[in-house]
C-alpha cells in the first residue's frame, strides 16, 4: 500500500556528445539547473538529492558519487548514490521516488551523469573489469561479444531476420532528428545498417549506440508541493526493478525474465492489467537495436518473438498505436549510460506534459520508461501518468 503520491514537476538534460568539454560536475549542474528552472524552483527548495552514475572506471575516480556531489546540488544535503549498472538511469528516479514517498522529504532532485570519453583509449576498456575474475575475465571478453551471443540467441529462437532488427535502428535514428540534444540522429536505411562494418557477428556498427557524455535531471515532489508549483504534474504510479543471477552463462538469453519481473512489479503498483493497451508511449532501453525488441517482449508490450512484427507494421512509430522510443532512444540520442536511462524518464515526462515539441506523441496519458544493465541481469521500470 503506497502511502504518498509523488510527482515529477521538472526535467532537464545536457547535449549528448562524444567529448564534452564540461567536467562531470559541470554536466550534472547544467542538467540539474535546467530541471530546477523548468519546475520554477531553486536549490533552496530541494530537500535531498539522489545521484545515478555508472562505473567509476570511466572517470578514474574512486567514490565517484562523492566527487560529483556538489555538481549535483547536494552541498550539505542528504545525498545518496544508487547504482544498478546500465539500469541506473531509470533506477535513479525510482530511488528519488522512495525518498519522497517515505514521507521523509517533500522535494528531491534526481541527477544522472556519465562522462565516458575520459576513459582512454576507449571506454570499452572499463568494461574489461565487469567480469568474474576467475571464470570469465581471462577469456578477454568485451561487451559486444555478449551482446552478439544474446542477439544470435534471440534471432535463432524466434527465427528473426537481421533486416527486421535493423528497422529499429532506422526508426530511432530518424526519431532523433527531432531531438535537440541528439548525438547520432540520421536518416538511414535498412541497407545502411546491413552494410555497416561487422563488429562481432551478428552485431554491426549501426546496430550499436555510441559512446557519449551527458547528464539528465528531474525534480520530484509530494502532492502538496506539486499542486503549488504546477498545473500539469506527471505522477509516478509504478516502480519496479529486478536482478537476476550473476551466472549469465546459465541464462536463457532469448527472453529477459528479469525485465518481465520488474515490469510486473511496476504494473501491479500502477494497476495496469493489459500493458499493450494501457501504455500509450514507451521509452524502452535500446543500447543495441535488437534490445528494444527484446525488452518490448519482456515488458509484455509484445508477445515473445513478435516485437519485430509490430515494428515492421509501424506500430512503434511515433504515429503508431504504441510509439516506442519517440525520443530517438540510445541509438539516436546517445548512450551516456546512467544519463541515457534518465533521458528516457525525462522524455516520458515531456511527452505526458505535451512538451515534447516535434517529437510529441498524440494523446499520451500513460507512459513507461525502462532500463537494463549489469551482466544481462537487471531491469528497472517506471510508469508515469499525466
Amino acid at each position, binding site marked *: 500500500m503506497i502511502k504518498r503520491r509523488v510527482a515529477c514537476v521538472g526535467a532537464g538534460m545536457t547535449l549528448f556528445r562524444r567529448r564534452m568539454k564540461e567536467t562531470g560536475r559541470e554536466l550534472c549542474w547544467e542538467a540539474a539547473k535546467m530541471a530546477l528552472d523548468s519546475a520554477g524552483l531553486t536549490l533552496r527548495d530541494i530537500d535531498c538529492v539522489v545521484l545515478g552514475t555508472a562505473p567509476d572506471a570511466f572517470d578514474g575516480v574512486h567514490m565517484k558519487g562523492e566527487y560529483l556531489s*556538489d555538481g549535483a546540488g547536494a552541498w550539505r544535503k*542528504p545525498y545518496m548514490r544508487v*547504482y544498478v549498472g546500465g539500469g541506473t538511469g531509470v533506477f535513479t528516479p525510482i530511488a528519488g521516488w522512495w525518498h519522497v514517498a*517515505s514521507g521523509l522529504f517533500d522535494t528531491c532532485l534526481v541527477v544522472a551523469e556519465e562522462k565516458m570519453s575520459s576513459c582512454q583509449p576507449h571506454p570499452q576498456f572499463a568494461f574489461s573489469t565487469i567480469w568474474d575474475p576467475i571464470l570469465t575475465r581471462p577469456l578477454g571478453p568485451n561487451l559486444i561479444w555478449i551482446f552478439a551471443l544474446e542477439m544470435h540467441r534471440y534471432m535463432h529462437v524466434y527465427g528473426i531476420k537481421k533486416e527486421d532488427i535493423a528497422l529499429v535502428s532506422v526508426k530511432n535514428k530518424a526519431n532523433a532528428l527531432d531531438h535537440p540534444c541528439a548525438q547520432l540522429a540520421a536518416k538511414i536505411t535498412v541497407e545502411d545498417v546491413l552494410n555497416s562494418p561487422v563488429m562481432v557477428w551478428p552485431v554491426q556498427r549501426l546496430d550499436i549506440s555510441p559512446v557519449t557524455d551527458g547528464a539528465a535531471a528531474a525534480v520530484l515532489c509530494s502532492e502538496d508541493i506539486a499542486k503549488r508549483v504546477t498545473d500539469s504534474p506527471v505522477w509516478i504510479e509504478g516502480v519496479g526493478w529486478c536482478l*537476476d543471477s550473476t551466472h549469465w552463462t546459465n541464462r536463457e538469453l532469448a527472453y529477459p525474465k528479469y525485465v518481465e*519481473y520488474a515490469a510486473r512489479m511496476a504494473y501491479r503498483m500502477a494497476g495496469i492489467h493489459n500493458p499493450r493497451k494501457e501504455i500509450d508511449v514507451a521509452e524502452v532501453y535500446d543500447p543495441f537495436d535488437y534490445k528494444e525488441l527484446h525488452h518490448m517482449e519482456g515488458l509484455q508490450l509484445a508477445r515473445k518473438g513478435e516485437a519485430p512484427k509490430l515494428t515492421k507494421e509501424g506500430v512503434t512509430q511515433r504515429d503508431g498505436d504504441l510509439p516506442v522510443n519517440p525520443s530517438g532512444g540510445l541509438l539516436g540520442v546517445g548512450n551516456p549510460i546512467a544519463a541515457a536511462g534518465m533521458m528516457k524518464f525525462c522524455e516520458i515526462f515531456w511527452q505526458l506534459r505535451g512538451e515534447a515539441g516535434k517529437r510529441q506523441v498524440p494523446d499520451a496519458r500513460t507512459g513507461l520508461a525502462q532500463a537494463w544493465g549489469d551482466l544481462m541481469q537487471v531491469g528497472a521500470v517506471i510508469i508515469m501518468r499525466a
Partner: protein
Amino acid sequence: MERAAIVGVGYTNFSSMTPDVSYKELMFEAASRAYEDAGVDPRRDVESFISCSEDYWEGFSIFDEFVPDQLGGVLKPVCTVSADGMFGLIAAYMQIASGLVDIAVVEAHSKASDLLTYEGVVAFALDPIFHRPLGGHPYYLAGLEMNRYLWDTGTTEDQCAMVVEKNKRNALSNPLAVYGADIDVDDVLESEVLFHPLKKLEVSPLADGAIVMVLASEETARKLTDTPIWIEGVGWCTDTPQLECRDWSRAAYAWIAADMAYRMAGIRSPSRTIDLAEIDDRFSYKELQHMEELRLCGRGEAGLLLEEGVTERDGDLPVNPSGGSLGVGDLLEACGLHKVLEVVLQLRGEAGRRQVPDAEVGLAQCWRGIPTATGAVVVLSREREVAEG
C-alpha cells in the same frame, strides 16, 4: 512517519585477513545468520535487497552484478547503494516507510585484505586535477584536520591517545574484534608519527567482514520478533568534496545529519536521551570531534568527558563499547553498519561481557572516511517511543 524496525542481524567475525573465504562466502555467512535471526526465508519473504559497495574497493566495475546469489536475491529487487552500509539501511527504511515493501535486507562488507594498494585506491577518490598530483598517503588530510581540531578546541594529544586506550580496551571484551589491546596513553603517544600529529596507533587498522540486517514494517516486525529495534530517526549529509571549500573547523556533515535524525526522533537533549553511542572513530580525534558535532557535549568538552570516564562502558554515556573502528578495525563500507550492529546487540541485551546496563536509546553514526565529508546518523530504541530525558 511510518515506522520500521531491525528484526534480524547476521555477521561474520571481523578479521585482519580472510584468505580462506571469498567476499561471496562472507556475505553468505552473514546473510544466513541474519535470516535465521529474523526467522525469514529470503526467497519467500524478503521483497528488497540493498548491498552497499564501491567498485574500487571491490576491484570490479559494476559490483552489483556479483551480489544477488549469495543473498538469496536472485530475480528479486536488488540494488546497490554506493555508500556506507548505514545509507543502505536508511534506503531500506525509506522503501518500507513508502509502503512499497514490507521486509527489506541491507548488506555491507569489507574484503580490505584483498586490496594490495589501499592508499592508492583512497588517492583515487581525490580530485584528479587539484589534489591527486600532490601525492603522499591521503591520510595526511586526517593529520591536517586533527591539527585544526586540537587548535580550535584546546583538546590535547593525550586526550586523543586516551580514545585509543579506551576503545582498544573495550575491544578486549568483544569476541568479534581483533585489534583489542591493553595499552596505555604512553604506548599511543610513543608510536610512530605517521601524519603529524596523528600517530600509528591512532589510525584504525583495516579488517574484513560482512554484516546483513533484516528490516520490517511495524506490523510485520511485531509478528516476527519480541525484540524489534525501532528506527526512530535517520539523517545523512554530504558536505563539499572540494577540500579548499570545506569548513575545516567543523564536521558539518555530522552536525546536519544528527539534526535531521534528532528532529525525526523528537530528541531535544541528545546527551540526556541517548544511553549509548557508537561513533565513527577511524582516527582517534574523530571520536571526540564527532561527539561534539552530534551535540553529545559542548565544543571542546569531549576530551574532558573522556578524562572523567563518562564515555567508558560503565560511564554515563558509553561511547564505542564495541571497541569502535580502533578496536574492531576499519571495515570500509561496513563501518557504519557495524556501529548499528553494536547498538542493536546492546539494546537487545545480547552484548555479553560488554553489555551496557539498561540501554534503551542508542545512536550510531558513520563517516565515509578520507577524503569524504559524508556521514549518517541513526537513532534506535527498544521502546515504542523515545522517552524525552
